[in-house]
């Protein structure tokens, strides 16, 4: 909602400077201030947003009431961020929101201010009366921001006091998404704010059942999944994020072509694009079925299959049209390119451990560097010498 949030927030800070509880610290980056300032009014919201239906009155002021239905623009926004358009700035104002007609006994749900996350939650709140505390996670989802600590104990305590929550609800229970747990220390929150933290289900779609069961999560609700659909939605952004490097490589190829005897051609173009797809799309999709555990190895296998396919498509490995040197270079480079990007997918996966990633990288990174380096030398020789 706030594409220019920095400046908006700064104005908000200035406007409220007269209020006694305002502590503004405008010394560093203003975005930081937006997160740190303690003078944000509970009721600050942009009523032009279509997902805000109006406000409801509480003893602490007016609280924005949200729609529990996603509009076409919400869905379009979700599609855009899945393709990396404005993904780092798809956020809403942190603060308190109301779903339905909550009163002082209604449950309090805590979430992140990434709009994709917020939308996933609110569309599950149909027919429910609940308060929603949106933490300032800088537009990052719950799990990632919990890992970074922005969805954390400090921000939660800060937000509880800023939204004057204890004046709005008469109970002392907060429901946090389970995946917020890496950032939040429940016992510390209780000690410092008096609010008891209950971890709800992993997925927002289970929240209604969780509440109906008296805040009890079934085992199944506590488990993170990573099925083919979960993986598929991640692949566009994985692929698109390789474009910068791809354009750089194609630029270098173009420059080399200006002086090459044996210039790069369309085969080189699709060979590289295919390796990128093998690493960023095919490996993630086929993940559990590739019979090795290390992601770098999974990607390498997919890349090797692709490299062999390219060579066979161009006249077979024994007598490739573009010569044996390039055929070997492809076998060195393409699997390693796919391997590198598959290895990067550990960061998006939901089950790889930090220690495991380090273990595989210590082996994979030098090998990837060496094979791509050697293969590149072979390609260059092939460009300038007829063999």
């Amino acid at each position, binding site marked *: 909602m706030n594409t220019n949030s920095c400046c908006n927030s700064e104005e908000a800070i200035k406007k409220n400077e007269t209020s006694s509880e305002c502590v503004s610290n405008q010394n560093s980056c203003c*975005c930081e201030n937006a997160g740190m300032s303690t003078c944000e009014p509970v009721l600050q919201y942009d009523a032009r947003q279509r997902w805000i239906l109006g406000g409801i009155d509480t003893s602490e002021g007016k609280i924005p009431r949200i729609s529990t239905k996603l509009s076409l623009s919400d869905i379009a926004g979700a599609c855009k961020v899945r393709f990396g358009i404005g993904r780092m700035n798809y956020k809403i104002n942190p603060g308190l929101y109301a779903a339905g007609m909550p009163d002082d006994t209604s449950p309090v749900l805590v979430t992140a201010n990434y709009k994709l996350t917020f939308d996933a939650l609110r569309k599950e709140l149909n027919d429910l009366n609940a308060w929603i505390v949106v933490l300032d996670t800088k537009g990052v989802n719950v799990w990632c921001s919990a890992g970074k600590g922005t969805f954390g104990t400090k921000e939660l305590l800060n937000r509880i006091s800023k939204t004057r929550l204890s004046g709005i609800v008469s109970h002392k229970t907060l429901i946090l998404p*389970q995946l917020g747990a890496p950032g939040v220390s429940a016992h510390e929150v209780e000690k410092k704010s008096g609010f008891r933290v209950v*971890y709800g289900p992993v997925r927002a779609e289970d929240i209604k059942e969780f509440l109906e069961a008296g805040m009890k999560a079934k085992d199944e609700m506590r488990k993170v999944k990573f099925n083919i659909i979960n993986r598929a939605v991640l692949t566009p952004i994985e692929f698109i994020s390789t474009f910068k490097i791809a354009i750089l490589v194609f630029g270098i190829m173009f420059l080399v072509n200006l002086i090459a005897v044996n210039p790069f051609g369309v085969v080189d173009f699709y060979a590289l694009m295919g390796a990128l797809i093998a690493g960023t799309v095919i490996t993630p999709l086929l993940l559990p079925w590739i019979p090795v555990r290390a992601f770098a190895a999974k990607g390498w296998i997919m890349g090797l299959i692709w490299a062999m396919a390219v060579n066979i498509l161009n006249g077979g490995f024994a007598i490739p049209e573009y010569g044996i040197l390039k055929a070997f270079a492809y076998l060195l480079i393409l699997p390693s390119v796919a391997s590198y990007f598959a290895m990067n997918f550990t960061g998006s996966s*939901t*089950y*790889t*451990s930090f220690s495991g990633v380090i273990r595989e990288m210590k082996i994979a990174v030098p090998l990837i560097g060496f094979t791509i380096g050697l293969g590149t030398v072979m390609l260059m020789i092939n460009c300038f010498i007829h063999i």
Partner: protein
Amino acid sequence: MKNKYLKNVCTLKLDSDKCVGCGRCIEVCPHNVFRILKGKAEIIDKDDCMECGACAKNCAFNAIEVKSGVGCAYAVIMGWLLGTEPTCDCSGGSGECC
């Protein structure tokens, strides 16, 4: 099909002497690594652990220890090159600061 990652690398440690069996670790674990047996938590399969750190962070009795970190390869490489701890600032400063 169940996703399985590398074996015998996980740094998860549980100190049974400190554990009071409150079950908070079971509540926060996304991979069902713990169970309660005879009033104390127990690790079922350490290889299922992804070191997210939720259990250690939420154990009021400091019974759990795990080295958690950013499992993003790019961040790790940048950390190696720059000699710093890996950070997950994939955002690269875009829109972070005005």
